[in-house]
């Protein structure tokens, strides 16, 4: 191993990863190849159709998603990312004291304004009322 690594010290820690990738890829390819040699090959339409819990498929799988998914997802991403700012604050909470607490409450308060706004505007309702 040491001989192999000589001159590649910068990449040293990554050699096991590299070997692992090689082994994994080889294993996958070999298995698929052997399976193709061994297995019987008798196709018919039902077998070729996509599996949907045993029921014959009704329509194309590529369907347009309900627009609500996007809005919920966007809102999630926004509020989720803001949570990143809570980590450094939480780590230093003890040292920040009351001042830090008030600061973060203001931050969260402004986030809540956005949340109430989204709520009020019906962005969080799954089915629009009325």
């Amino acid at each position, binding site marked *: 191993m040491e001989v192999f690594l000589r001159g590649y*010290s*910068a990449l*040293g*820690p990554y050699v096991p990863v590299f070997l692992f990738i090689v082994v994994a890829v080889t294993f996958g390819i070999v298995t698929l190849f052997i399976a193709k040699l061994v297995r019987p090959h008798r196709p018919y339409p039902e077998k070729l159709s996509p599996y949907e819990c045993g029921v014959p498929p009704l329509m194309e799988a590529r369907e347009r998603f309900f*627009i609500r998914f996007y809005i919920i997802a*966007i809102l999630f991403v*926004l509020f*989720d990312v*803001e949570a*990143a700012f809570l980590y450094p604050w939480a780590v230093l909470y003890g040292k920040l004291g009351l001042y830090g607490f008030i600061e973060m409450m203001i931050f969260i308060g402004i986030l809540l304004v956005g949340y109430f706004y989204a709520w009020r505007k019906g962005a969080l309702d799954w089915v629009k009322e009325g």
Partner: protein
Amino acid sequence: MSAEVPLSYYLILGALLFIIGAVGVLTRRHALVILMSIELMLNAVNITLVAFSRMQGNLTGQVFSLFIIAVAAAEAAVGLAIVIVLFNSRETLNIDEINLMKW
């Protein structure tokens, strides 16, 4: 086995990602793909900043990348909202077809 990956690798990776993103913005015609290319550029900046932060031995770069992540999320939200509105009215996201006004 504990040798570190040198700083320049990160910088080169960042630069390459940035260039890939920039070329993507300029050559792709689909609005969503352009949006993703822009996100790629921002993340390239993040890599560069964090690498420099390590090199300079201060945390400014890492703090900055935190801000960039937050802003990028807001930007993506606004961008997707615009994309949805536009798609609802035009049924296309090819920016060559979005040409009511001359470029």
